[in-house]
């Protein structure tokens, strides 16, 4: 089979595949993980995303992008969907979409906001809300590959109840050597947490990130406003812009 080439790259066309829901996990009051079976799934890198497409009875279609939440397990992939109140697609995926139902999937997409599991530079992950999804994929891929690359995650959430993957993050921070996890609470801090609720600032990035001299790779993901702020903080601290990779979810911050 020949694939079209572009600038020397060999690329296969991205086709829509029919996937089915095999399992659903409740992560928080507003976020759920969907495990999909995608016959023919070619595999992917942590940080890549898929497009999901829904079709109504009258033929109307809507498609949205969702990050892949972890490494593929054969033909199984996972996405984690955060409900956007009055959204068109996310409430359907959370409330109506049922086990065995079809959904069209296209991917994997994206080749910049990815982490290569053989990478050795320290990694800083900065997540806002559901922006943790592709970063969790990197944490899971690191574990699966037996990588010792030093990882730090700074995760900004409204309250402790909004932490997606809370149990697994607690476990991994304890068991995965070289993984540190720090939280920033914007609305209400849990009992025993030092400090007042606040939006991510210089002090958070300074105390929980890596110094630029260690030449880390930084990945920032979340709502637009959050990404703007966090990326600006990193550049302000002296991280070269080329080493700060961003993924912006959702139209506004």
């Amino acid at each position: 089979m020949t694939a079209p080439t572009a600038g020397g790259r060999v690329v296969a066309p991205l086709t829509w595949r029919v996937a089915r829901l095999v399992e659903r996990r409740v992560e928080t009051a507003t976020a759920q993980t969907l495990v999909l079976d995608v016959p023919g799934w070619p595999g992917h890198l942590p940080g890549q995303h898929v497009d999901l497409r829904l079709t109504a009875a009258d033929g109307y279609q809507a498609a949205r992008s969702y990050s892949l939440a972890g490494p593929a397990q054969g033909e199984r992939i996972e996405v984690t969907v955060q409900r956007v109140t009055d959204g068109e697609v996310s409430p359907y995926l959370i409330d109506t979409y049922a086990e065995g139902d079809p959904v069209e999937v296209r991917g994997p997409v994206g080749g910049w906001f990815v982490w290569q599991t053989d990478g050795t530079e320290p990694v800083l992950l900065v997540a806002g809300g559901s922006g943790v999804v592709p970063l969790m994929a990197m944490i899971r891929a690191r574990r699966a590959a037996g990588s010792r690359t030093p990882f730090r995650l700074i995760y900004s959430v409204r309250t402790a109840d909004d932490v997606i993957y809370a149990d697994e993050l607690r476990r991994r921070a304890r068991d995965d050597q070289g993984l540190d996890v720090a939280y920033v609470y914007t609305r209400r801090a849990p009992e025993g947490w030092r400090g007042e609720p606040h939006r991510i600032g210089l002090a958070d990035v300074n105390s929980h990130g890596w110094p630029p001299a260690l030449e880390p790779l930084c990945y920032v993901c979340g709502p637009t406003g959050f990404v703007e702020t966090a990326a600006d903080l990193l550049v302000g601290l002296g991280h070269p812009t080329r080493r700060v990779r961003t993924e912006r979810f959702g139209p506004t911050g």
Partner: protein
Amino acid sequence: MSPGFQGRPRSSAPDLPPGQYLTEDFPVLSAGPTPRVALDTWEFVLTSETGAEHRWSWDELMRLPQDTPTVDLHCVTRWSKLGTTWQGVSLDTLFDGVDTDARYALAHSYGGYTTNLPLDDLRGGRAWVVHTYDGGPLPAEHGGPARLLVPHLYLWKSAKWVRGIRLLVDDRPGFWETAGYHDYGDPWREQRYQGD
């Protein structure tokens, strides 16, 4: 196809390219932090395939004849925004007096971003270097002080923080194109990814 999915087709949705939905706000999508470029060091450089350079400082750009296009924007992430108003310099004005046989262009930005386009798509009144959006200076997160505006292609072709255009005899993919996005990016043909 998707049991129970009714969708929420925007009732007033006009003639949008396939797969797009209407948005009122102005989303931001870029691969890295927002570069901040000072106007006194800003420049725009057109480099022909022979290496001949044509340079404009900020003041020089401002002294060129200005256009005020009103255009629709179509982002590959599926939002479209209609009737946006800009001010800037037509690429026809910038190419005036540039001697070239090249067929391709690679736009490059402060911050290192690149994107490729056929040169014909930059001429004929279809592309601008814009510095004003909605009556005010173009905000940095939208590509200010100046960005490319090529509204008939997906928005990633409208390179933000544009710094120059290099003319090429052979097509060469830019940043997103190397990451799997389409080389041309026509929204009406849904050319999102390589192979579309």
